[in-house]
């Protein structure tokens, strides 16, 4: 152990059954290989639970590296994660210039194109600056739905670019150095052809709707004015 501690905050409501978790957890195991002690917390259960939130804030204070893993929601971070980041920043008022701790992020989105994640990456960068974290970079990827809840190591060849990107990013993150652009670009590479991803998603929605007996009602407009 090199005495450095990494804290992963998982910002998906799906918790440990999320793509965010699969990606973040994979990075954690790689960082462990680089001698870091690891800890993982879910953001959602901490909101509305004072004890858990206190524990979360204390864990943030105690880490040398904070990793945020979250899904893109409406072009940016999910509400509970923004709420949590605001609490962290409020607590660290006046520490802007310190930069003793580092921050890296992983954002996955459901659309095939990674570019949808651009505002989220900007928000995370500004959070780092305002809360006094040294920003190491944001690894963004599209087609997040293709990962699902399985561990990344079990997702096979479909995530080959992402698995390689995380492996290449790990030594930089472990040493507190910025993630190189080439690694960020590798992470952003599509997992499969766009037509295949969208075709699979359409099929998945129809199948789920059939299961719930609403296959013919997917386009319903319950709040349309008559």
């Amino acid at each position, binding site marked *: 152990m090199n005495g450095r501690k990494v804290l992963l905050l998982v910002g998906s409501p799906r918790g440990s059954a999320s793509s965010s978790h699969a990606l973040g957890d994979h990075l954690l195991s790689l960082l462990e290989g680089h001698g870091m002690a690891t800890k993982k917390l879910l953001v959602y259960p901490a909101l509305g639970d004072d004890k858990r939130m206190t524990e979360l804030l204390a864990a943030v204070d105690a880490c040398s590296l904070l990793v945020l893993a979250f899904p893109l929601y409406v072009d940016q971070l999910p509400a509970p994660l923004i709420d949590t980041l605001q609490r962290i920043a409020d607590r660290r008022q006046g520490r802007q210039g310190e930069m003793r701790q580092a921050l890296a992020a992983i954002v996955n989105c459901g659309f095939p194109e990674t570019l949808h994640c651009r505002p989220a990456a900007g928000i995370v960068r500004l959070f780092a600056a305002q809360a006094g974290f040294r920003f190491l970079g944001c690894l963004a990827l599209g087609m997040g739905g293709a990962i699902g809840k399985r561990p990344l190591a079990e997702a096979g060849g479909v995530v080959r670019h992402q698995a390689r990107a995380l492996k290449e990013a790990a030594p930089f993150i472990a040493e507190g150095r910025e993630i190189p652009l080439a690694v960020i670009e590798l992470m952003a590479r599509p997992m499969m052809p766009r037509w295949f991803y969208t075709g699979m998603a359409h099929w998945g929605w129809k199948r789920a709707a059939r299961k719930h007996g609403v296959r013919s009602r997917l386009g319903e407009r319950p709040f*349309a004015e008559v």
Partner: protein
Amino acid sequence: MKAVFLKGSPPAGRDPLCNRAAAAVMARAHALSWEVKAFALATMNIKACRGCFSCWTRTPGRCIIADDDQEAVLRAWAGAERIILLTPLTFGGYSPELKKALDRAIPALLPFFIRINGETHHPQRYPRPRRLLAIGTLKGPDSESEEVFRDLVGRNALNMSDGEATTMVFSGDVPLSEMEKRLGTEPFFGGTAQ
């Protein structure tokens, strides 16, 4: 003109600038005889989205969380031709108060994919010419936050309106009269400013 106005100010008037901007928006909309459904989100019970997609594949168009205040927002959204968002800039993005309601607005979209400007998006469940205005407030000038905000609003417009976005940022102690004047020149409110 029907408008939905989502006020993402923090609780208990902690952001006077936001409250002033809200008053300016209401004055402008009133002058144009718009029908505005305004929501003070911090005072409402809106739970966090669970990310379950039930609103697409189980209860089409409705959120599975039925014991809170979000349905009123969805009803107003369905009929609106103008969407107005108001928020204190939070790391260049939206406040948690505003974002909670927006995360729960995806029932207003359909699950299927369409292409807009070469990118993938979802079709509207309630299609109509819909324009988006987002107003952000800042304690003082902060060009980096503004840049992220404009980028975010531009992307939101592709996902929740007909693609046209108007972004305004009020920073510092802007008086109400000045806000009203600036809103009045915006094409969104029938003005002629570029």
